[in-house]
C-alpha cells in the first residue's frame, strides 16, 4: 500500500480495533476494474441504485398488522422513524389498501419479539421505495382476510361486501374490522390479491400531515433518551480522547466510594460505572483513571496527506472510450472535503434489562437485527431471547448503524441485576462518532472544438463508508471491488461525453468512518459539478445548456434532463450577477433519483450568504409530496451547513471540536429564507428521497460564489480568501 511506504501512517493493525472490532481483513487488488466482472458489475449497479424491494416477512400480514378492539390498525414497522417521514408514508400505503382512514392507523416500531425484524437497516433512502410493493400487498391480503371472516360471520358472499373506513358492509349488514377479527384463531393467508388502481387511493399521493406530529409537538416521551424501566440505574462508560487508544489498565479506587456508585465494571474492552443517577455516574466516570496505550500523535495535516489520490488501492468503477492521454492539454482541478460529524441532537442512548435467560433493550437504532445479534452473542443468549424495542430516533443520518453501546449497557445490567440506562456525553458523541471520511478529488477535462467535453476523468480517494461497517464487512469489499458508499455520486453522469473514466482510491483511516447521510454523494457531487461549471465557463457556455448537451439517452438521463430544465426554469436561472446576487447551478443522480438545484447567493461581511435555493427533483411517484418537500428542505439546510461551516480536526491525536459552536453548524440565521421545491414524476413507483437532495447543494453554492467573486473554491467548508 502506497500510503504505508511514504511514512504517513506507521500504525499497527491492532490499533485499528477502535473501529469496534469489526476487523480489517483483506484489500482489493490494485487496479481492479469492476466492469470486467459481470457479477461485480451487477452487484455494484444494484448497490448504487439501491431500489431493492423489501424482503422480510412479506407473506405474513399478521406479523405486520394488529386489529385492535376499537377498530384501529396497529402497524408494526420494521423501518425506524428518524424524521424522514417513513411512518407517515407507510401509514398512507396501508390505509389505502386496507380501506381505513388515516386516523385509524397507528404506526409503531416493531419490537424484535414481534418477529417483524428488518434484516438489513433503515437507511440508504430505501424505506418507502422498498416497501411500496410488499406493504401494499400485505395490507391488501389483510383486507381480504378480514372480508372473508366478515362474510362468514355475516353469512353474506364476500363478493357482495365493500369496505370503507374499516367497516365492512353488504346486503344491508355491517361489521367492523374489529368485529370481523374477534375470536378468529386460525387465519388463512390468501394469495396476493390485485392491488387497487392508483386513482382509487385516498391518501397515497396526498400531502397528509405526519402521523407523529402531535407526539413531537406536545413533547411525548418517544425517543431512546426518554426510555425508562422500573428500578433503573444509570451507567457511564469511560472512553479515550485519543484516536486509536487501546485499554491497558484502570484505577477505580477513587471512583468506587463516590456517592451513588453501585458498581464499577471492568471488561476486556470497556470500563463502565453504574450509579443511582446520571450525574453520579458521570462524576464517578471522571474519577476512574484509565491508562490507554495511544496512537502516535496525529494531526489534520497527516490525515490530509494520507487522504490523497495515489494512496491506497485504486479501482476503476466507470470507463468509456480510450482517449486518456496524460500529455494532452487537460484542465485539472483538485478538490477536498473534510471529516464530517453526524452531530445528531439526540445522543446515542440505551436502556438494557438483562435477566438470567433473556434481555430487553430499548434503543434508538437503525439496525435492529444487528443490535440484537450483537447483544445475544455477548450475553451468550439465543437471538430470540433478546428483545430489541426500538424507539423514535432523534436523528439518524447513519449514526445509529453502529450500536456497541447496547452491548455495554447489557453487560452493565447483567452485572448489577437491574436495568441500566446509559448514553453518550456530547464530547463522546463528537470524538467517537463514525465520521464522514475526508476526500480528495482530482478531475481532468478537455473540451472539443465545439466547446463540449471530449474527455472527463474523476479520481478520488475516500475512507471506508459502507464497507467495513456492521452492514457490509470488509470481506465483501473484495467481492464488490469498491466501497458502494464512498462511490455514491462518484459516477460521471454526462455519459454523452466520448471519453470518461472514474477511479476510486480506498485508504484506511486510523479512526472509524461510516455512513453520513448520502454517503459519498455530498463530496463527490461538490467536486464534479464544480468542475463541470468551470468547464462551462471555459467553453463560454451557459451552465444549464452545457450540462444538457452532454447527458445520454437512457431513461434516467431523460429524467436528469427534466429536473435540470425544471430547476432552471423555476429559478429563472441567469448567469448575470443582479443586485449583488448570483446564481449557481448543479445537478446529481443518487440512488436513481435525479435532482437539480439553483442557489442564490451574495457575500455579506465577507461571508457566503445563501438567500434562496430552488430544488427540482424526480423521486418517481410521490407518496407524500409534503414530506418529500420537507426532505428537500432539510437536505438543502443540512447540506449547506456541511459545505459552509462544518469540519472536524485532528489535534494532538484527538478529534476536535467536541461541542456545538466550535463545531459550527447552520443556525436559523444562516438558513435560506426561501426554498422552492418542484417535484417531477418520471416513473410510476416511489424512489429515493431522503438523501438525493444533498447532492447538488455544495456545488450550487460554490458555482454562485465563482460568478460573484471569480474565486473557484475547491475545499469544503467553502471559505472566501
Amino acid at each position, binding site marked *: 500500500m502506497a500510503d504505508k511506504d511514504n511514512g504517513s501512517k506507521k500504525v499497527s493493525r491492532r490499533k485499528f480495533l477502535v473501529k469496534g472490532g469489526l476487523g480489517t481483513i483483506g484489500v482489493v487488488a490494485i487496479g481492479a476494474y469492476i466492469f470486467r466482472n459481470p457479477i461485480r458489475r451487477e452487484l455494484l449497479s444494484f448497490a448504487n441504485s439501491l431500489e431493492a424491494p423489501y424482503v422480510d416477512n412479506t407473506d405474513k400480514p399478521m406479523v405486520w398488522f394488529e386489529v385492535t378492539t376499537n377498530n384501529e390498525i396497529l402497524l408494526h414497522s420494521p423501518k425506524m422513524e428518524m424524521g424522514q417521514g417513513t411512518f407517515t408514508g407507510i401509514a398512507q400505503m396501508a390505509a389505502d389498501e386496507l380501506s381505513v382512514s388515516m386516523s385509524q392507523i397507528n404506526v409503531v416500531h416493531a419490537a424484535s419479539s414481534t418477529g417483524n425484524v428488518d434484516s438489513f437497516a433503515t437507511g440508504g433512502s430505501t424505506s418507502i421505495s422498498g416497501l411500496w410493493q410488499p406493504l401494499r400487498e400485505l395490507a391488501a391480503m389483510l383486507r381480504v382476510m378480514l372480508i372473508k371472516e366478515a362474510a362468514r360471520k355475516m353469512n353474506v358472499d364476500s363478493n357482495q361486501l365493500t369496505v370503507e373506513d374499516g367497516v365492512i358492509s353488504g346486503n344491508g349488514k355491517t361489521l367492523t374490522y374489529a368485529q370481523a377479527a374477534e375470536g378468529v384463531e386460525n387465519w388463512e393467508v390468501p394469495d396476493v390479491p390485485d392491488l387497487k388502481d392508483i386513482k382509487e387511493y385516498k391518501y397515497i399521493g396526498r400531502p397528509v400531515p405526519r402521523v407523529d406530529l402531535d407526539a413531537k409537538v406536545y413533547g411525548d416521551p418517544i425517543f431512546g433518551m426518554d426510555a425508562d424501566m422500573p428500578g433503573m440505574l444509570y451507567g457511564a462508560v469511560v472512553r479515550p480522547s485519543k484516536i486509536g487508544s487501546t485499554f491497558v489498565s484502570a484505577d477505580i479506587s477513587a471512583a468506587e466510594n463516590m456517592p451513588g456508585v453501585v458498581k464499577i465494571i471492568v471488561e476486556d474492552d470497556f470500563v463502565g460505572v453504574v450509579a443511582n443517577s446520571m450525574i453520579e455516574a458521570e462524576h464517578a466516570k*471522571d474519577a476512574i483513571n484509565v491508562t490507554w496505550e495511544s496512537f502516535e500523535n496525529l494531526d489534520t495535516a497527516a490525515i490530509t496527506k494520507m487522504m490523497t489520490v495515489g494512496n491506497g488501492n485504486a479501482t476503476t468503477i466507470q470507463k468509456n472510450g480510450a482517449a486518456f492521454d496524460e500529455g494532452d492539454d487537460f484542465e485539472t482541478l483538485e478538490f477536498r472535503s473534510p471529516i464530517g460529524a453526524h452531530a445528531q441532537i439526540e445522543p446515542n442512548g440505551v436502556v438494557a434489562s438483562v435477566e438470567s435467560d433473556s434481555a430487553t433493550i430499548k434503543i434508538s437504532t437503525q439496525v435492529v437485527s444487528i443490535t440484537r445479534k450483537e447483544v445475544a452473542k455477548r450475553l451468550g443468549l439465543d437471538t430470540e431471547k433478546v428483545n430489541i424495542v426500538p424507539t423514535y430516533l432523534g436523528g439518524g443520518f447513519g449514526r445509529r448503524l453502529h450500536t456497541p453501546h447496547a452491548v455495554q449497557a447489557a453487560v452493565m445490567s447483567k452485572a448489577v441485576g437491574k436495568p441500566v440506562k446509559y448514553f453518550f456525553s456530547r*464530547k463522546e458523541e463528537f470524538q467517537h462518532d463514525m465520521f464522514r471520511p475526508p476526500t480528495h478529488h482530482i478531475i481532468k477535462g478537455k473540451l472539443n472544438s465545439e466547446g463540449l467535453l471530449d474527455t472527463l476523468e474523476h479520481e478520488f480517494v475516500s475512507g471506508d463508508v459502507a464497507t467495513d461497517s456492521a452492514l457490509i464487512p470488509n470481506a465483501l469489499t473484495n467481492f464488490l471491488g469498491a466501497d458502494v458508499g464512498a462511490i455514491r455520486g462518484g459516477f460521471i453522469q454526462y455519459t454523452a461525453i466520448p471519453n470518461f473514466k472514474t477511479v476510486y482510491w480506498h485508504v484506511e483511516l486510523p479512526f472509524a468512518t461510516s455512513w453520513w447521510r448520502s454517503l459519498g454523494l455530498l463530496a463527490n457531487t461538490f467536486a464534479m459539478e464544480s468542475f463541470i461549471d468551470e468547464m462551462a465557463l471555459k467553453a463560454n457556455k451557459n451552465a444549464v445548456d452545457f450540462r444538457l448537451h452532454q447527458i445520454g439517452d437512457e431513461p434516467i438521463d431523460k429524467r436528469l434532463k427534466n429536473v435540470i430544465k425544471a430547476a432552471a426554469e423555476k429559478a429563472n436561472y441567469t448567469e448575470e450577477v443582479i443586485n449583488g446576487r448570483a446564481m449557481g447551478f448543479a445537478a446529481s443522480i443518487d440512488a436513481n433519483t435525479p435532482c437539480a438545484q439553483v442557489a442564490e447567493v451574495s457575500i455579506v461581511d465577507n461571508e457566503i450568504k445563501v438567500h434562496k435555493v430552488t430544488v427540482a427533483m424526480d423521486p418517481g411517484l410521490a407518496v407524500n409530496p409534503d414530506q418529500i418537500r420537507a426532505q428537500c428542505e432539510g437536505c438543502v439546510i443540512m447540506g449547506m451547513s456541511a459545505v459552509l461551516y462544518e469540519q472536524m480536526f485532528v489535534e494532538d491525536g484527538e478529534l476536535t471540536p*467536541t461541542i*456545538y*459552536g466550535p463545531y459550527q453548524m447552520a*443556525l436559523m*440565521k444562516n438558513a435560506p429564507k426561501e426554498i422552492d421545491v418542484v417535484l417531477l414524476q418520471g416513473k410510476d413507483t416511489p424512489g429515493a428521497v431522503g438523501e438525493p437532495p444533498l447532492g447538488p447543494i455544495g456545488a450550487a453554492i460554490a458555482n454562485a460564489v465563482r460568478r460573484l467573486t471569480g474565486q473557484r473554491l475547491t475545499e469544503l467548508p467553502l471559505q472566501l480568501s
Partner: protein
Amino acid sequence: MKIKSIYIVLILSITGLLFALANTTKTATYELVDDQAQNANDDYNKMMDVLTHQRCMNCHPSDNIPKQGDDSHPHYFGMARGKNDHGFEATNCNTCHQSENNLNSGVPGAPHWALAPASMAWEGLTREEIAERLLDKNINGNRSHDELVKHMTEDDLVLWAWQPGVHANGEQRTVPPVSKEDFKKAVENWFANGAVIPSK
C-alpha cells in the same frame, strides 16, 4: 556544556547582585520621589495587566460582540450586546449564564452577568485610552474615584476574573496575571495617588 554552565553561574551571580543592590536602604530624597512615581507606575501596570486580560476584556468589546476563551473568539451562536447589554429579548445572557459558575456545563456565571456598557468598550484601546475612559465621569456612569475603587475591588462580576470556573471541557479557565489581593491594592494605591496616567 561546561561553558554553558559557567554562563549560568555568571548570570545567577549578577542577578543576585542586582537584588542585593535593590534591597539596600534608600537614602536620598530625590530617590524617594522617583520611587513613588515608580510605585505608582507599578500600581497602574498591575491594574492594567488585569483590565487587559481576556477574563476582563472579553466582556468589554468594541464591536458589541462578547468574546470567549483565551483566544477571545466571538461568542458562539451570534450572541451580542442587545439593547441593554444583556443580549436579546428572549435569548439573553441569563438564558445560559446564572449567578455562579456552572461546573457541570462549564458555563461561567456571576451576579448581574452582562456586557460592560458600550461606553466602557476597551477592546483594541491602549492602556492610556482605557484609563481615560475609566476615569471619564461622562461615560463611566458618573462614578467618582471612590466609587470606582469600590466597583473595581468589591463587585462580584469584576472579582469573578479570579474564580472563572471551568471550560466546557472541564479545564480551568486562566486567571489574570496579578493576584486578586495585589490587584485590589494596586487599584487602591493608584487612585489614592491621584490616578495619574503615566504617559500624561
